[in-house]
């Protein structure tokens, strides 16, 4: 027991891999960082040394207040719709496993596989004639729900398949619980992690959705990402960058929460 424990020597390969990883990270993170700092500099060309300002951020918050609020409203409405449609759908898919429900499960994913522009065009061709509907934000909502629903269903279904839903329900039934009591008292609480993960995913996707929304929106129903494209296309680069900064402040906490929730789900599964 005299042998001293030597620290393992890192091989040259380790250092090469580390350098490669750091390079890739830098390649991805530096533009983000540049863009965010550009949003608070007086002049993009002179950089941070030229002085800092919040004027661009303020300009974005006043001029693009509408799209920001609309996007948040859309995300919340989209979340409500996917909760109301997705949880019952996942429940039925989990309880009735047959060729038909498996086909439905596959079909639900279609809007993710098909390019957003194609879905948007199909919606316009079909419902574009309904004037009031076409120009309202509900039109965008339909697109967002189509696109995000599979994420909610999958997330909830994954948790439902990992718990013994059938026996839990039979247990509750034997104790006298009717369907409503079982659904709200047993099923929903035990799928909580899946519902939270699905919700964060839906909100994040809805907030960031651009492809489909670009075609579905009207000048009066501009969303956050569409507004972002608009600022870069038509205004000073600093304004666009400030916009990116605002977008980040909204979306990054959601992404972190999503990661946390999905960790909680995978931990649950291991039990």
């Amino acid at each position, binding site marked *: 027991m005299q042998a001293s424990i030597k620290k393992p020597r890192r091989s040259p390969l380790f250092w090469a891999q580390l350098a490669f990883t750091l390079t890739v990270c830098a390649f991805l993170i530096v533009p983000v960082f540049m863009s965010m700092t550009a949003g608070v500099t007086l002049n993009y060309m002179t950089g941070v040394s030229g002085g800092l300002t919040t004027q661009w951020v303020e300009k974005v918050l006043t001029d693009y207040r509408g799209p920001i609020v609309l996007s948040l409203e859309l995300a919340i409405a989209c979340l409500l719709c996917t909760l109301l449609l997705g949880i019952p759908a996942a429940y039925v898919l989990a309880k009735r496993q047959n060729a038909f429900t498996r086909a439905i499960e596959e079909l639900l994913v279609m809007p993710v596989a098909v390019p957003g522009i194609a879905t948007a065009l199909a919606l316009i061709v079909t419902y574009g004639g309904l004037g009031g509907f076409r120009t309202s934000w509900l039109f965008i909502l339909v697109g967002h729900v189509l696109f995000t629903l599979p994420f909610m269903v999958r997330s909830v279904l994954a948790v439902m398949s990992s718990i013994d839903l059938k026996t*839990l329900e039979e247990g509750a039934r*034997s104790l006298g619980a009717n369907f409503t009591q079982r659904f709200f008292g047993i099923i929903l609480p035990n799928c909580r992690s899946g519902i939270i993960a699905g919700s964060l995913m839906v909100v994040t996707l809805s907030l960031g959705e651009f492809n489909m929304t670009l075609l579905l929106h009207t000048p009066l129903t501009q969303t956050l990402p569409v507004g972002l494209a608009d600022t870069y296309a038509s205004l000073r680069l600093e304004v666009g960058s400030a916009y990116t900064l605002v977008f980040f402040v909204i979306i990054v906490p959601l992404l972190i929460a999503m990661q946390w929730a999905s960790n909680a789900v995978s931990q649950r599964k291991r039990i």
Partner: protein
Amino acid sequence: MNNADNVSIRLERCARTFEDGTRALEATDLTIQAGETIVFLGPSGCGKTTTLRLVAGLDEPDVGGKVWFGDEDVTAIPIERRNVGMVFQSYALFPNMSVEENVAYGLRVRKVPADQRELRVQESLEMMHITDLANRRIDQLSGGQRQRVALARAIAPRPRVLLLDEPLTALDAKLRENLRVEIDRLLRSLGITTVYVTHDQGEAMALGDRIAVMDKGRIAQIGTPEEIYRAPANAFVADFIGTMNRLFGRVENNSLVFPGGRVNWSGPPPAAGLMFRPEDLQLAAPGSGNFTAQVVSAFFLGDHVRLVLDAGAPDFFIARVFERRTFAKGETLEFTLNPHTLVSLEK
């Protein structure tokens, strides 16, 4: 707890065919007395769980079958309105609730007033000796503790009938033994009509007032544990319960004669052989026994020795002997066999 609400259970021409056409249960008639514990015993796929689910109301019998609780026809009443308590092999405890909340659930959904609910939860926890686990989460419990919680939860609403579906199968041997004693005590003190499903004959013998041995969707025999063991109605029951020796030979002078010796027997030789249990063979002093046999192998099992014997009958016999001595392979021994312990079956 009171047992005034106990009911008898009656199955009337109850059959069950699955969606894929499999016949899980042939038309069955069965009456379970109020307060009785009946055990459905059989190999997997024999229809015992199917029958339990019909009694529970988790499944309905095929058209024409009826389920009665006392004078009430409950065939069309689903489990949530039958007022039964059920315990599952996989416990089916609610992970989102504490032990106490699990036990209180049945009372809560039945809208039992809070003070009364509290009282009954405490009573049930005490009966299962788990009062100190009341605030635990389910994932903090061992298997044995989980099944105690499941039992407490099932009895808390004071059901008319208690149904247990292989409640001990998921537990290890030692724990199974302990909890079996506990369940026996619980059933005796509640005096509740109980249906217990198991594939373990030790459990069935220990707990059942009567045992219904099931085979291929039918009840092969129903009777007290002793009747099932001592007087099996058919070869399936004889072979499924315990160990049964079979003796074949020719009948002459009121004896069944085989190479090792003879036993008293009048009447024709039974088609399935004369049967007897390993413990009914007694070692005899040389010259005083019915027959001799050679030891094929001997297994020392602590309190007894299990001998495999060749008496040319023509199958080997199994004997349980309690003598404190060692047995050598090939040794010749002499045995007596009391003719009263012989069982003869035609099928």
